[in-house]
């Protein structure tokens, strides 16, 4: 019995040796690190410099026919060149100006079609297991919507829910092909900028998973970080409000940090306040901790929301040679609170203007008043929801140096 089983095993395995189910050597794969989506621009197609246009004519006509019905996507993939990434010390002299990565683009009606076209230009198999950044161009986000392009990532098992999602003010492909000022790839550079490790609260931190959860929930609308192409460098900070899967509006960096406080995801930031005792001087305070509590009251059929923000700060920089003083404590606290409230109210105003509940007030109401919620037209209700903000700031952090 045992011998029969053994020989069966042997025959089985020797048979399988011939097949290798899409197994590839590492050097036969092209690791995609970032994906960018744009709305295809007609003039872009005639641009001979873009590497995505190396297709033959037949393809072009074929895709054109397919695209006429649908919006056309421009897909760009960033692929690092392994020999340049790894052998930096070896060939340091020659490769100074050359980028360590490759950006390939294609225009197609669906993501996979685009990948197919790019694949035809590459001798290596495109591998999406290391995609950590998905960027979406402004036009596309506004007109076609984010759902349309994020869908592929949700269905593709290799792409993680931790991949960062960002909306680009301008064209995403341009940002992707910019050389980073330091480091080797744009994707890693942007990734560092829009992840918690950046330590800044001017950005909004989100990822594919968070976006999906917020998008699926009808009591909250998602927000995505904003990336912008500056004159010489890539700029981050600010955020994009997404309503019904489409870009509804932008938040400035300061509004974003208010949003971070309102969503209880605040990290750290500096605020510039006029000095209470010496009006001509400025004090830079570091808001170290901040959080918010929502109080929802039902009044008849409508709701009233009170947001209580509290936090603590430290003084960091003085424009004059006056240092921190005991006298000004109360006043300073009030001024900081006013500043924070002003920013929070700006954010709330911005959100109410586009009727996008980015704070998740809706799901709080849903949680507490499920019966009322079902009758509610939340988008309309939210835009005229009375929201009151109270701020309580404490100067309770370290005072490191005294002034005059």
């Amino acid at each position: 019995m045992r011998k029969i089983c053994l020989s069966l095993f042997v025959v089985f395995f020797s048979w399988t040796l011939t097949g290798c189910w899409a197994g590839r050597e590492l050097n036969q794969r092209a690791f995609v690190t970032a994906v960018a989506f744009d709305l295809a621009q007609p003039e872009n197609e005639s641009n001979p410099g873009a590497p995505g246009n190396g297709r033959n004519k037949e393809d072009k006509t074929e895709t054109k026919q397919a695209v006429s019905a649908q919006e056309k996507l421009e897909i760009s993939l960033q692929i690092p060149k392994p020999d340049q990434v790894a052998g930096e010390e070896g060939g340091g002299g020659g490769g100074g100006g050359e980028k360590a990565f490759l950006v390939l683009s294609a225009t197609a009606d669906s993501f996979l079609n685009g990948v197919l076209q790019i694949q035809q230009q590459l001798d290596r198999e495109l591998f999406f297991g290391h995609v950590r950044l998905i960027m979406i161009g402004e036009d596309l986000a506004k007109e076609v919507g984010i759902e349309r392009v994020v869908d592929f990532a949700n269905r593709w098992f290799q792409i993680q829910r931790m991949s960062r999602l960002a909306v680009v003010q301008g064209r995403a492909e341009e940002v992707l092909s910019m050389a980073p000022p330091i480091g080797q790839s744009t994707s890693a550079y942007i990734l560092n900028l829009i992840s918690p490790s950046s330590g800044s609260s001017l950005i909004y931190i989100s990822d594919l998973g968070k976006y999906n959860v917020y998008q699926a929930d009808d009591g909250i609308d998602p927000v995505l970080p904003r990336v912008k192409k500056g004159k010489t460098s890539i700029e981050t900070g600010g955020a994009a409000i997404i309503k019904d899967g489409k870009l509804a509006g932008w938040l400035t960096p300061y509004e974003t940090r208010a949003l971070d406080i309102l969503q209880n995801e605040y990290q750290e930031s500096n605020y510039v306040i006029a000095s209470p005792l010496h009006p001509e001087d400025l004090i830079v305070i570091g808001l170290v901790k901040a959080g918010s509590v929502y109080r929802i009251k039902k009044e008849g059929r409508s709701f009233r929301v009170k947001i209580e923000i509290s936090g603590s700060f430290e003084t960091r920089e003085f424009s004059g040679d006056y240092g921190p003083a005991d006298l000004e404590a109360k006043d300073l606290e009030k001024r900081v609170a006013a500043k924070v409230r002003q920013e929070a109210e700006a954010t709330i105003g911005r959100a109410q203007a586009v009727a996008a509940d980015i704070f998740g007030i809706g799901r709080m109401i849903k949680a507490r008043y499920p019966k009322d919620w079902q009758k509610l037209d939340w988008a309309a209700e939210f835009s005229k929801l009375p929201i009151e903000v109270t701020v309580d700031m404490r100067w309770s952090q370290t005072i490191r140096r005294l002034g005059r």
Partner: protein
Amino acid sequence: MRQKKERFITIRQTVLLIICFSIGGGILYLPNTAAKVLQSGGWLWIFGVGLLVILSGLITAFLIRMFPEDTLVELSQKLLGKPLGIAVSLMLILFFFSFVPLEVRILQELVNISILQQAPFWFVGGLFLLTLAYAASQNIKSIVYVNELLMEIALGVGLVVTVLAWQHFDPVHLLPVFGESRINPAHFREELGVAYIYTGFPVIFFLVPYLKLPQKVVKATFIGTAFLTLIYTFFTLTVLGVFGYKETLNLTYPGLELAKSVNLETVILERLDLVLIVSWISAIFTTCLVSYFFTALSISKLCGFKSHSLVAWALAPLTYYLSTLFTNYFVWKEYSAYLGFFALLVTVLLPAILLIAALIKRRSIQGNQ
């Protein structure tokens, strides 16, 4: 002449057998079903079904304690007479066996999603079934031991993933506690089909003659089913709390997505989902092994074979064929719902009938005396 059997299975092993027979591929899409039933309160439904299962598990255990020498094959014939007894045992055998093709199919799906994207069924399922048949042809001792080991690995990894996922936990997702709408009778497939994942304890029908302390079988069953209920409830609670029920409804395998969203950027193996799948192969394997082994054992007992290994090997092609019938997710999801009804029948109704029969018999014996 019955050979004197070695009684070696401890309480701990019984508990683990109950758990490992229950926990297989089903748990990975359990929260999806739960969300369909009771939205944000889905975990409560899971808990409720768990309580029912604990109850019927206890009934079964009480019944079994009266007959510490018999497996179901002998016990049912004693209580219900030969023809009915054989019918009951056949039903239970069918019940046990019906898990195997389904689990093999789920395994194939999982492997194709993640590890080997283009591997055909004859490779993944075939290799798995060969391993299964080889394992099931061993004696009961090594089956019990290997179950203990594999289950610990799978449970350990699963627990780590679940606990790590709490970094994304948001209690708002679990409110309102009892869901947004009433339980919809039209969704009976999901509501009752959930029972499919709970069906571990009938394994004690076959275990009793090997138990070290047969009188402790009630305790073991209680711990097993209670632990099972806790695991499922905790897992569903975590998934619903992390994703919210709306996103959970979008996901085929919320368990895997949970592992995918766990953030461990500094660790070398950054993809916990793959680690989970690899270790979950062993969970699926134990489920299959237990059901497959006891199917083979009972068939060989019914037919009076000396050894069960031949049956174990003979069942492999049949299983292979049956699992190819599940063409896609929706087909086997429906099948698993029907399996859930069947499970309710076997786990709730059968013990009750047997217990009544046993009580009547006992009374008649006492009356005669």
